[in-house]
């Protein structure tokens, strides 16, 4: 152990003699390790950002939607089915909350023109039960959410998403003001907090009303467009999906899954798909960066070969003084590992700083993964061994007498 430490100290001394050469050899490893860490960190960061966004829509979420419906042999339009009714949601709530299901939220949503004074906007109007806010993790910016009483009384109240609130009321506080949806006039009782979503189903650009109000007074329909179900945990998602499926088949008096007039999508399906895509992307980027690491490793090998040639006489002398093959191999391997390890440590800091800056600029989640650090230390040392072994063996196999004569 003592000997190893001394060899390391001596190798360090030797490497500092030629600072320029040592520095350039290390630079190759710094760039290699640095870029691998940066790209993996950015890949994982964007994966985390996307997953967070999906998670923010609610966790352990299952969505039941009507699927195409056949009536008398004519296939209906996708999503346009009317097979789901409130009784389905009630049945799930009654029968499955004992086992796998936590909360059930029946919903009726449709796009509609919403008018407030001289402003108007086309948004999703969603009829809901109060538990919707818990399942979809909606919090209030101002006012209150739809209550159980509002649903029971078919109250003419509405809660606005922050984007909708600005579209309709601009700077004015919308609480207490009225909006018109179709022929109905509703009083605004709350504005939700922004969730930072975007796109077609942006939770910030919606109007929430009691389900009864939406069904009976605004749209005049009896069916549901979806039922959101929160499972008790991530582990029971699949089981919950199965149980809901069979319960609904039973409710709709259908024979088997092939006849189902509904589909159940879990959030984990979506998450898996996204994770797979971003995971592949991360691996691809990491692979490209690994090529630069390989080039760095070849640089180390090159330097070590030059070193061995330059120090042929020294190797001959060491052998004449009693150094065994093993001793010589150890000495040169330690030199190359020291080069790559130093490169690995600097490369790690370089990579962590670079990925921090880029993720700040690109507004991604900054992920420091333990694997990155293990990679920097492990892979760089491994490169030292792989690319140092050949030069070290070459040194150890020199014949002492020829090495001593070498000019």
């Amino acid at each position, binding site marked *: 152990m*003592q*000997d190893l430490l*001394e060899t390391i100290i001596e190798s360090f001394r030797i490497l500092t*003699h030629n600072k320029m050469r040592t520095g350039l050899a290390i630079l190759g490893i710094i760039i290699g390790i640095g870029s691998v860490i940066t790209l993996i960190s950015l890949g994982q960061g964007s994966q985390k950002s996307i997953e967070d966004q999906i998670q923010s829509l609610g966790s352990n979420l299952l969505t039941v939607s009507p699927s195409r419906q056949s009536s008398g042999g004519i296939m209906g339009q996708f999503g346009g089915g009317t097979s789901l009714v409130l009784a389905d949601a009630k049945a799930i709530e009654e029968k499955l909350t004992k086992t796998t299901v936590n909360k059930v939220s029946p919903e009726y949503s449709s796009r509609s023109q919403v008018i407030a004074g001289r402003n108007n906007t086309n948004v999703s109007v969603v009829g809901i039960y109060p538990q919707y806010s818990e399942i979809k993790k909606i919090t209030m910016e101002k006012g209150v959410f739809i209550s159980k009483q509002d649903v029971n009384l078919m109250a003419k109240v509405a809660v606005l998403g922050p984007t909708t609130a600005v579209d309709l009321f601009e700077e004015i506080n919308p609480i207490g003001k009225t909006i018109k949806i179709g022929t109905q006039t509703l009083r605004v009782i709350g504005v939700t907090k922004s969730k930072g979503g975007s796109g077609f189903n942006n939770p910030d650009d919606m109007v929430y009303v009691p389900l009864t109000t939406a069904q009976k007074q605004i749209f005049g329909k009896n069916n549901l467009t979806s039922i959101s179900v929160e499972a008790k945990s991530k582990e029971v998602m699949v089981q919950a999906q199965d149980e809901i499926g069979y319960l609904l088949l039973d409710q709709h008096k259908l024979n088997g899954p092939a006849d189902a007039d509904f589909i159940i999508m879990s959030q984990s399906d979506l998450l898996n798909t996204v994770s797979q895509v971003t995971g592949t992307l991360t691996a691809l980027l990491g692979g490209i960066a690994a090529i630069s690491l390989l080039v760095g490793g070849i640089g180390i090998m090159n330097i070590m070969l030059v070193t061995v040639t330059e120090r042929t*006489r*020294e190797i001959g*002398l*060491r*052998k*004449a*003084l*009693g*150094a*065994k*093959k*093993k*001793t010589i191999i150890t000495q040169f391997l330690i030199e190359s590992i020291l080069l790559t390890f130093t490169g690995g440590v600097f490369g790690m800091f370089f990579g962590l700083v670079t990925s921090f800056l880029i993720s700040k600029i690109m507004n991604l989640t900054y992920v420091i993964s333990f694997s990155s650090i293990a990679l920097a230390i492990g892979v760089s040392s491994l490169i030292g061994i792989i690319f140092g072994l050949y030069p070290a063996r070459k040194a150890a196999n020199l014949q*002492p*007498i020829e090495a*001593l004569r070498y000019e």
Partner: protein
Amino acid sequence: MIKVSKLSKIYKVGEVETIALSDVSFKIKKGEFVAIMGPSGSGKSTLMHILGALDLPTKGNYILDGESVLNLNEDQLADIRNQKIGFIFQSYNLLPRTTTIQNVMLPMSYAGIPKEKRLETAKKLLEMVGLGNRLNHASNQLSGGQQQRVAIARALVMNPSILLADEPTGNIASVQADEIMKIFEDLNKQGHTIIMITHEKDIANHAKRIIHIKDGKIEKDEKN
């Protein structure tokens, strides 16, 4: 102590065979101071390399301390070089940019001797060759004579059976060469066995026995 019988070394380059040594036999007893003399190309360096376990003969036998050196593997040969032979080279062969004491300690670290003992022994020997005040000088800052004295300290550090000196004064000014030879004579008086290779009559005259080699054969083996 050393018994060499019918030693031959033949170098083969392509089809051409060069005979460096042919049927060389002699014995050297403990405590002798032997000079091996001969013109360049006589085969004296080849003989020295074989005696130093740096090279193996093509034919013949070499027994050192009752042990045949020819049947050993590479690691065993390394141990022989480390423990039984002290080399002194014409060009000193010290590690550059390394302090004198580290140079002297090097063979001991290959033998796995603990650091305190190494420092102590190296210091003692450097004082003996008159370099007690140069312990932490880089070896390339010393004069030729001083460097050779460091090399002698290094050769003695494992207390070897024989000291092998290859033209030890070849690169040194004559005044300093006399100092080096004085050290050899003192070492011999203390009981060290010394084999020295040289082509200079003056230097060979310091030895008690001179073996003359010419064309790979012993020409004359005389007491001095």
